[in-house]
Structure formats: C-alpha cells, structure tokens
C-alpha cells in the first residue's frame, strides 16, 4: 500500500462516485444525505466513500453544525492536477502534430 500523499490522493480519486462527490462539493458544502441523493447507493456506502476522501484529506466534516456538512479541501489535488496537466499538455500537443501530419498527408513539417 502506497503511503505518499500523491498515491493516496490518486487512490481516492480512482472511483467515479468519489470524483462525482468532489465535483458536487466544489459548488458548496453538502450533508451525507444530500450527497447520497443522486446515487443508487445506501447511505453507509456513501459514508464509506466519504471516509476514503476524508483520510486522503480531500474533504472535512464540519463539527459545528448539527447537520455536519462535508466540505471540499482542494489542497492535495494540486500536485495531481499539475502532474496530469503536464502530461495532458505533452500528449495534446503531440496529437495535434500527429493530426496535422495525417491531415496533410505527411508533407507538413512545422
């Protein structure tokens, strides 16, 4: 089991339900019940995903309010985002050039 922060963050992001939860929390705090609504999942199942996100430091549960809403903590995402973006740039630009090459029948060179 990897223990460095990037691996933990990636593991937490590796499930579509958890990515969807993070996306919704980016628009504002929500309770477990509110988060569970759009999914065909039980509340305990959603809670399990929230626990993974909380351990990865991607969310926090506010203690003050009775409803204990979940809140996004985006800091750990920065290293993942920067990494993914730099590879995405690498391939997007390479594939642009490949696209040019294929479209222009191999005659193009910058």
């Amino acid at each position, binding site marked *: 089991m990897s223990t460095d922060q990037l691996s933990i963050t990636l593991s937490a992001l590796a499930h579509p339900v958890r990515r969807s939860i993070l996306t919704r929390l980016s628009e504002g705090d929500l309770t477990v019940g509110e988060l569970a609504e759009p999914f065909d999942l039980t509340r305990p199942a959603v809670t399990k995903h929230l626990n993974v996100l909380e351990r990865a430091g991607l969310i926090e549960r506010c203690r003050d309010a009775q409803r204990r809403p979940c809140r996004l903590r985006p800091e750990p995402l920065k290293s993942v985002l920067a990494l993914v973006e*730099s590879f995405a740039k690498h*391939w997007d630009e390479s594939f642009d050039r*490949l696209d040019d090459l294929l479209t222009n029948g191999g005659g193009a060179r910058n």
Partner: protein
Amino acid sequence: MKTGVNVCERADECDLVFTREFSAPVEAVYEAWTQPELLKEWWGPYGFSMTINEMSIAIGGIWDYVLHGPDGVSYPNRAVFEEVLPMQRLVIRNTGGHSVSQHLTCRMIVEFKGHGPSTVVTLTMRFATSAALGRARVMGAEQGGVESFERLAKQVGGKKL
C-alpha cells in the same frame, strides 16, 4: 483540451489515459506510430524534436530515442516493445525522459480502433505509483501550483473511461 484524459488506480499502479480521435484510417495512424521518419515528425510537445537512434518494431525490439527541448536540453529515452499487434495494440516499456519536467518511466499501452475513415487512439501511461509517479511529482508537479478545482473536475473526473 481536445484529448480526453482519465485517471484510474489499482493497488500498485496508476493509469493516466489519453484518448484522441483522428480523421484518418487505422492503417495511416498505425504507420505514423511505427515508421521512424513519420514518428519523429509529431512525437513530443510543441517545439520539441526527436532523434531516433534505433527502432525495431517487434516483441523485445528496442526503441532508442532522444527528445530535444526548445531550450536545447536533450532527454534520452530507451524503450522496449513488449507487445506488437499491428493496427491494434502496442505496449512499450519506456525508461528515462524528463520531457516537460516529467519522468516518463512507465509502460505505454497504445490501442488503435479503426472506424472506417477515422481512428480512436487510446494511450495509457501506466506508472508504478510508489516509484515512478512519486519521482514525477518531485521532478515537476510541485512546481505547477494549479489551483482551479473545476479544471481538475473537467480533466480527471469529467471524462468517462
């Protein structure tokens, strides 16, 4: 961003998956990946060029190449072809390459799906998370400092596998 991106992880591996559709039949796309004189026309980000010292498209075949950055820095790479299924699939074990400040030590799985006049290419970069991706983080990611969560949602979460 015209290239679709996704991230998924298993126990010890992390995949970065890039998908792009090209307006060319699979034969032409495959040729552009496997003919050295065509490959060096497009491989690498803007401003980069490539020297191919050796390229043998066969299982166990070596692909020895150097990427030249626009700043004059060279990034040597050495790869081995682990699977070669013409017009369908290439698996390349790549070692080296600090291109765009990133460590490119990973397994690249390239899948070609021809649909008549167009072809979908899916490129999976498969990293051993604890090792290579950790190095990639040290090499480049921390200098990034990108903050917008929306962009992550779009790039990481917004694309379906």
